[in-house]
């Protein structure tokens, strides 16, 4: 689906004029279909997330859960169906507009921190603010605050190669939260960590999210990690199971 067609632009105008997403859902997927070549990843997946909710999206490998997260976050666009964010149709927006949304209103944490190796830990955390136009001084000051919150004091000047897996993932978490996102998308955030580090990261993630009222969409295949969420849904063969209360 192209995002720059007149039809898409028209859809955008209509969706902005008539917000149809119920206010109790900050993020919503409606009957998403998405394929990669001959492989069908999503086959009519629907999902709603309430503001401030921590939702775990579970499912076996290849079930489509990461694709669903990427569609919800505007990283991918579905071939069919609709994605809504805060009463606004997201999937019909232009690439530039979706990039702005991701930068200004969403945060991300991935399985392997994906820190920029050339930057210090503090610069990595400050990155979303710098990209959004905040001056370096205030951005670094804001980033610094997160080191105490996440038990990372003293590690500000280290580069990613000088951090343990658990420390790097906490830096990634700080980077995901530093700009005050409305929604944090976390894709297997503890996937590369041992059980003790996983627990620490999840305790910090959920505590920070609750303190700031951040909505979290957490993709995980581990039940122990999903147990930190308020609710879970299961993605199976590209659809969301309704047996576990998929529709809030």
């Amino acid at each position, binding site marked *: 689906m192209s995002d720059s067609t007149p039809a898409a632009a028209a859809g955008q105008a209509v969706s902005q004029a008539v917000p149809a997403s119920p206010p109790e859902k900050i993020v919503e997927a409606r009957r998403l279909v998405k394929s990669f070549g001959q492989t069908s990843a999503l086959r009519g997946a629907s999902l709603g997330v309430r503001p401030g909710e921590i939702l775990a999206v579970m499912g076996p490998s290849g079930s489509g859960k990461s694709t669903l997260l990427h569609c919800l976050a505007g990283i991918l666009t579905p071939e069919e169906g609709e994605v809504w964010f805060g009463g606004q149709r997201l999937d019909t927006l232009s690439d530039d507009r979706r990039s702005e949304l991701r930068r200004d209103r969403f945060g991300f944490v991935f399985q392997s921190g994906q820190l920029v190796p050339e930057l210090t830990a503090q610069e990595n955390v400050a990155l979303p603010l710098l990209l959004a136009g905040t001056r370096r001084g205030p951005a670094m000051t804001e980033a610094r605050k997160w080191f105490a919150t996440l038990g990372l004091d003293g590690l500000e000047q280290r580069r990613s190669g000088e951090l343990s897996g658990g420390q790097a993932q906490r830096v990634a978490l700080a980077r995901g939260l530093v700009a005050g996102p409305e929604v944090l998308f976390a894709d297997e955030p503890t996937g590369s960590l041992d059980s003790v580090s996983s627990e620490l990261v999840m305790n910090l993630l959920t505590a920070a999210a609750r303190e700031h009222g951040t909505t979290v969409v957490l993709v995980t295949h581990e039940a122990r990690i999903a147990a930190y969420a308020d609710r879970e849904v299961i993605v199976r063969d590209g659809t969301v*199971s309704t047996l576990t209360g998929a529709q809030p």
Partner: protein
Amino acid sequence: MSVPLTLLGLLEREPSHGYDLKRDYDAYFGRGKPLRYSQVYATLTRLARDGKAIAGRAEQGAGPERRRYVITDAGIADVERWLSEPAPPEPDLQSELFAKVVLALLLDRPAGRYLDLQRAAHLQRMRELTELKRHDDPLDVLLADHAVYRLEADLRWIDHTAARLDLLAPAVRR
């Protein structure tokens, strides 16, 4: 695990003698702990008394007295209810989870739906234990962790089994 409900489930397949039920129970669920004949016949007598099964006439033969039992609608309803309810998520559940999945496959009931309900019940319990860990003292956390890891083992088995139901069904009905 409920022996009466398991025997009732086996009885739902076809009218059977106590001997057949004991043989099948031991094959599917005995695992080195076979039922005693006295337990089988006492259970069948109770099921008949409670209207869950009907005992046929005594058949005379060379051996001991034999009766054929037939499940009633009330018995079928009990099996149906049991197979669709998740068990309370506690440690050492494996025998009940196993029995319900095997019986659901034998009776062509929705085993996947049962596993989904059981998964939801397990996850709810894990959420409660995880919440508990935020507040309580280290020993309580240690205990909660133990329960969480055991529930996690069940959940892995549930997911693994759910992914293989198509293969398992013909094997169970062999």
